């Protein structure tokens, strides 16, 4: 009988986050409204979780808790991306919490619980864990999306997110049940072993149906067409700092799970096996989803007048690019892309949130007119983040895209690369439009100066340094990812 493998270090980051979350919530209950205290505590918890995650780096590829949880470089890297996203979200939310009179402890606790779900999703080596982690994320984020209680838009956003999210979760769960029926296990490593051989006809049908359901569920979570429909509404209606969070960390986690399940558990083996039969079809389906996401996301973004909606469609388009990396089965490229995307997108949203003021009043692109030289500390960073999202060389966005496309070309997806590069060209149109409005349009009314909080400046500094560091000197991060990539193959078996 195999050992239970209880190893608390293996879930160190999750434990730290959970304890911090509970602590912050309790403190809120006993002495409410202490934003600075709660914020610093939450941030400290995140940093500590990061340390715990880094400590796992040395552990090497092992599993724990009856192979439910996996420890490898892949997990550590994604965990760090998620923690970075969460930390930046705390900075971004700083001013918003005061303006909206939101109890800070509750809010931070929900962020932390969401982060627990995400890190667990990355760590999960079992479909059960994946489901549990996904639900932890979504339940926390449903609440966050509806956080501005008196605003109907926020409530509506939460309702849509909830109904559609729960709907897609049902698909995911049914898929898990069917896969269990097909392979007699919910453990991914075990499942990979089972499908590497041939299966009977009945099992194949179950496997196919299960994988399809899973694909639908994941497609929803990472916002790919045609399961993207909720994204623009939810991103627009949710409070801007929450949108910033939703569009980055959970997506990074979602893509990690996507990779873990599809690229690693059902890889094209090249020999006659159930996995191979399945792979040829998920590859085709994901190819279609990727192309649809890139084209629809980019083209529809052109027509947007609301910057949050524009960034929502842009987010769909970026999901399309990342799917190319999933298809190329280069998880390091995906991980790097999600790191870069998290930084630049959060940077964008930080400024959008600040400029939107209380109650998200100023979110139309036209309302950015004249921001350019009147408040350069807002307009220049925003321009840099947008240019990075557009994949301009010298910025992180370029390096991420280049690696992704190069990898996909080598993996035999030239048509996707061509579409990807073409769509990048299209995307310039709408990213640049914001810059033009900021610098070249005269405002209709006097542009007020927005005061910059210290937390905002911190977020800006981190994001700007990130964009340029990863754009100009990413070698070190690349080396780390390459090391992790080599460890992965052993970890999965």
């Amino acid at each position, binding site marked *: 009988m195999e050992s239970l493998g209880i190893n608390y270090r293996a879930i160190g980051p999750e434990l730290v986050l959970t304890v911090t979350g509970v602590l912050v919530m309790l403190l809120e209950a006993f002495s409410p409204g202490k934003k600075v205290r709660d914020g610093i505590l939450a941030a400290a918890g995140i940093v500590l979780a990061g340390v715990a995650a880094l400590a796992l780096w040395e552990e090497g590829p092992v599993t724990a808790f009856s192979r439910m949880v996996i420890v490898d470089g892949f997990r550590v890297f994604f965990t760090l991306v998620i923690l970075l996203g969460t930390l930046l979200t705390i900075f971004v939310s700083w001013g918003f919490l005061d303006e909206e009179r939101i109890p800070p402890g509750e809010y931070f606790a929900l962020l932390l619980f969401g982060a627990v779900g995400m890190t667990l999703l990355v760590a999960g080596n079992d479909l059960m864990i994946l489901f549990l982690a996904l639900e932890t994320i979504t339940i926390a984020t449903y609440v966050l999306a509806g956080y501005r209680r008196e605003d109907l838009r926020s409530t509506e956003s939460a*309702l*849509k997110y909830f*109904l*559609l999210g729960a*709907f897609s979760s049902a*698909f995911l769960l049914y898929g898990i049940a069917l896969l269990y029926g097909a392979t007699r296990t919910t453990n991914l490593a075990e499942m990979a072993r089972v499908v590497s051989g041939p299966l009977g006809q009945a099992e*194949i*049908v179950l496997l*196919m*149906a299960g*994988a*399809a359901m899973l*694909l*639908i569920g994941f*497609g*929803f979570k990472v916002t790919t067409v*045609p*399961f993207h*429909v909720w994204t623009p*509404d939810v991103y627009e209606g949710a409070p801007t700092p929450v949108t910033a969070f939703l569009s980055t960390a959970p997506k990074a986690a979602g893509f990690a799970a996507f990779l873990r399940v599809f690229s690693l558990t059902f890889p094209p083996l090249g020999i*006659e096996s159930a996995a191979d*039969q*399945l792979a*040829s*079809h*998920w590859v085709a*389906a994901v190819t279609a989803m990727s192309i649809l996401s890139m084209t629809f996301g980019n*083209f*529809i973004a*052109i*027509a947007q007048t609301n910057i949050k909606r524009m960034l929502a469609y842009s987010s769909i388009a970026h999901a399309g690019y990342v799917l190319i990396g999933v298809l190329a089965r280069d998880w390091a490229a995906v991980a790097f892309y999600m790191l870069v995307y998290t930084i630049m997108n959060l940077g964008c949203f930080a400024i959008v949130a600040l400029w939107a003021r209380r109650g998200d009043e100023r979110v139309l692109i036209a309302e950015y007119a004249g921001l*350019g030289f009147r408040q350069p500390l807002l307009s220049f960073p925003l321009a840099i983040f947008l*240019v990075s999202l557009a994949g*301009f*060389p*010298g910025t992180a966005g370029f390096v991420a895209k280049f690696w992704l*496309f*190069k990898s996909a*070309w*080598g993996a035999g997806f030239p048509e996707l690369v061509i579409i990807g*590069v*073409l769509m990048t*060209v*299209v995307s*310039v*149109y709408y990213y*640049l439009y914001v810059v*033009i409005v900021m*610098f*070249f*349009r*005269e405002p209709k009314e006097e542009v007020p100066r927005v005061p910059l909080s210290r937390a905002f400046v911190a977020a800006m500094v981190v994001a700007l340094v990130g964009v340029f560091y990863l754009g*100009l*000197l*990413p*070698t070190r991060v*690349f*080396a780390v*990812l*390459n090391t992790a990539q080599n460890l992965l193959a052993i970890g999965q078996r």
Partner: protein
Amino acid sequence: MLKALVLSPLIAAGILGIFGRRWSERLIAAIGCGSVGFSMLLAFRLFFGDLWPRPPEQRVIWEPFFSWIASGPLRVDWGFQLDALSGVYILFVTFVGFWIHVFAVGYMRGDPGYARFFAYMNLFMFMMLVLVLADNFLVMFVGWEGVGLCSYLLIGHYFDRAYAASAAKKAFIVNRIGDFGFALGIILIFATFGTLRFSEVMGTIAARFPEPEALGEIGLLTTIALLLFVGATGKSAQIPLYVWLPDAMAGPTPVSALIHAATMVTAGVYMVARCSDLYARSLTALFVIAVIGGMTALLAATIGLAQWNIKKVLAYSTISQLGYMFLACGAGAFSAAIFHVVTHAFFKALLFLGAGSVIVALHHEEDMRRMGGLKRAMPLTYGTMLCGWLAIAGLPPFAGFFSKDEILWRTWTSPVLPEPWGRLLWAIGWATALLTAAYMTRLIVLTFEGEERFARSAEGHALVPRESPPVMTIPLLVLAVLSVSGGWVGISEAYTGGRIANEFEQFVRPALARVPVHSDHLAIAEFGHGMELGLAAVTALAVLATLIWARRFYRRDPLRPAPRLLENKYYVDEIYEALLVRPIVRGSTVLLWRVFDVAIIDGAVNGVASAVAAGAAVLRRLQTGLVRSYIVMILIGALIVLGYFVFVGSQFPAR
């Protein structure tokens, strides 16, 4: 030393960008010009002190900076490489750049965005140097996009003018279309060669692909070459992507002189020359380049004949001259192309600065219909402009004559162009030369000669144009001297009966590829010097005749109306707008967004729901609701995915 050369303008740009707003114009100008001047001195020192004395084969200085991307097989470093080709480039880029900066000190006086202007100009110099000195494709791409960004920022300098903003946007987007090809080309190069270093790609290309790809054969090299060339058509304003350059004239005139005439727009030519080993192995690509270059030269020259805005005439002239350069590349004469890049930088910068001097004197009037008779008030500007005029027209012994003649001769004798295209393109180039003489004469006559037309148009107060201050006229004089003498470094050996070789060609040749010779083609030597001299004499006489005729023609009636078709630039902008821009924007708004996301889903919700809930009472009360539309959308997607997996995927593979 290369690092200092490149970084000096960047540091200045940073300083000016951060502190410049509070400083006096004098200090800003000192820093802005000083940094470029410093780079210029270093460039001269490197070129004459280090590069020139070496034996030709060893003229490569390589300075790695630090590692940029290292992932598996992909290794890209920030590295700079100075060889004969980039040496020539940094020399004239920093030199012309410096004098244009000096001119701008006077031109931009009193502008509220003085510091911003110089910060962007310095940033541009940095990016241009990165582009030129890059030792691999990816770093070159950084510079390539960087100069585009700076050009965008500088075109939009007068951001309170709506057309400047739209011109900036147009320039940026058109360039991105070109970059699409360039980026794909880079990826394909990496996939083929496994490296992006110029020296490694160009060094191994002969071993990997011993036979050049024949005309009409679209092989791997041709694909790469053409993809890269798409990028060049964007940056260097060739058909079909030339439309942005005339609009780019909305920027300040020194910007037009530096970016849109002398340096950035020749980046495409530089790239082709840098990859000459690649292009020399694809006869199809060379042919395409030659034809596009020739067509662009002719088309732009005809449009230039009918423009009224002085800067637009010069813009079309630039497009036309760039066409010449590509014609030379396509004919396999890469050194002739680079030679023309250099002489063109001198005389076109001069012409633009002269135009700037006039524009300032007339309080930002750019319409030549409201100029005229300025030679009395502005003798220095007039005199130097005359040098530019004769240089671009190609009259011996001015600079343009030698470079243009070299291009025409090399086209006539091209070993790579199929019969009879060499002679056909020569004829196009020849006709363009005459057109050039005509439209430049028109510009000179309309601006400087005849009666003064500006007094009538000035609102209220009378205009009294005055000669520009020395800070502006000295750069004009310097460039005028070079417009006269700049061509003497590359005099064809035919003029000395073969006794003195073409110095310029001798110098750059080791950095460039030699094109393969067509089997059914005569070698150049067999044409003989006599024929070269004869053709040159015919061209020079024809140009002279055109100059005299055009001067009389336009003096008689300067304001004679131009053909509508030409004045409206063949309606190309309108055609692009109708065929490309509007459908895309409308398509996104109407088709994809409204129809796809709303109508189809709503339609589907009604359709599906009515099929499911057949009760008439329910049907009547059915409304479209967004949440449910989304659910239907997801459900339809889910059914497709599920159906595909289960019904297509579950089949056992045929054994």
